[in-house]
């Protein structure tokens, strides 16, 4: 595919992605911090739903022989260390690398700083990569997959995981309906904390207090 066509496809896919991120409110820093402080579960719900949809879609496409899966190599130290830094950065930024763009689009000015910091962080890694490669970015078991480790077909294990995530989502939604987590201004702020009756108006103390 030509670069120009790939850019058009990217812009169209991104527009859909951006609408989904904005409408679901997961681009709000209040949702991200709320998830990490176990006050708000919209981020986890979107995440697991997207994973589940991907599992079903890829089970079909791979089962039909239309695609080749492209998993990342397993590198234990890099996955753990990088993942920890990534998570801490997400909490400080109130965004992940994709939702930064949604914040900019929705009008948050601080997200321009997050974007600049992100480009600088990627730039530093680019210069460090040749040094880090022999230390933590090589070796390991390669592109390890759960289905391959189990010796089972991808589609079967993918559908089993899809069922597992869906069951978790059903329980999560019954325990904590998503509308409860939106907050008064759709930014995840003023959500009643866990254990408090979700039918009380957001941000108001319980009558007992």
């Amino acid at each position, binding site marked *: 595919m030509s670069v120009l066509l790939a850019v058009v496809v990217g812009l169209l896919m991104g527009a859909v992605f951006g*609408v989904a991120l904005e409408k679901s409110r997961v681009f709000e820093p209040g949702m991200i911090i709320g998830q990490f402080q176990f006050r708000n579960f919209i981020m986890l719900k979107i995440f697991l739903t997207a994973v589940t949809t991907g599992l079903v879609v890829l089970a079909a496409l791979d089962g039909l022989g239309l695609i080749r899966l492209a998993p990342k190599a397993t590198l234990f130290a890099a996955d753990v260390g990088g993942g920890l830094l990534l*998570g801490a*950065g997400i909490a400080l930024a109130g965004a992940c690398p994709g939702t930064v763009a949604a914040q*900019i*689009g929705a009008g948050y000015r601080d*997200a321009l700083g997050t974007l600049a910091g992100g480009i600088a962080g990627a730039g530093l890694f680019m210069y460090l990569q040749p040094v880090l490669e022999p230390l933590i970015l090589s070796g390991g078991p390669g592109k390890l997959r759960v289905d391959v480790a189990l010796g089972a077909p991808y589609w079967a294990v993918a559908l089993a995981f899809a069922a597992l995530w869906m069951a978790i989502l059903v329980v999560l939604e019954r325990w904590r309906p998503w509308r409860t987590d939106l907050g008064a201004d759709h930014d995840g702020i003023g959500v009643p904390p866990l254990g408090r009756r979700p039918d009380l108006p957001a941000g108001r103390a319980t009558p007992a207090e």
Partner: protein
Amino acid sequence: MPYGLRDKAWSPYAAGVLIGLLQIPAFLLINTALGASSSYVTVAAHLASLADPAVGGIRYAAQHMEGAKNWWQVAMVAGIALGAFASSRLSGTRRRGFSPIWTRVAGVRSLGGRVLMGTAGGFVMLLGARIADGCTSGHGISGLAQLSVGSFIAVGAMFAGGILAAALMKRI
């Protein structure tokens, strides 16, 4: 269709399915999985090349500078901003300044202070994402969907890092 572009909020399930379906054009047209963080390397490498012409000599940088896959991802991240702009305009939920959450959990009261915090956060976030070779999209949405063992580890570490950092902030 139960949801429209003028609605202020969609269910996380509608949004999640829509995002998951984007794997179809990603795999069939671009021959890759959904991801976002390597586009930062593409932009960083081109910006660095303005001051440091030798950057193309770094194999990792060179791998991210050219080709349809790299520019597709840069365009997709730009498209996210366009989609969110249109969506927030249509529903009347435009944002200004920074989210009030930062005053509540971190005592940040000025835009300048918040920009500093966000810049630091973005820096750590992308450094971590590139060390782990993926972010919430690449390791999270795409890695877990491909049953990649490394992605299960990276996603667990990502949530752990986020929970630890958020535990240092004030609870509201």
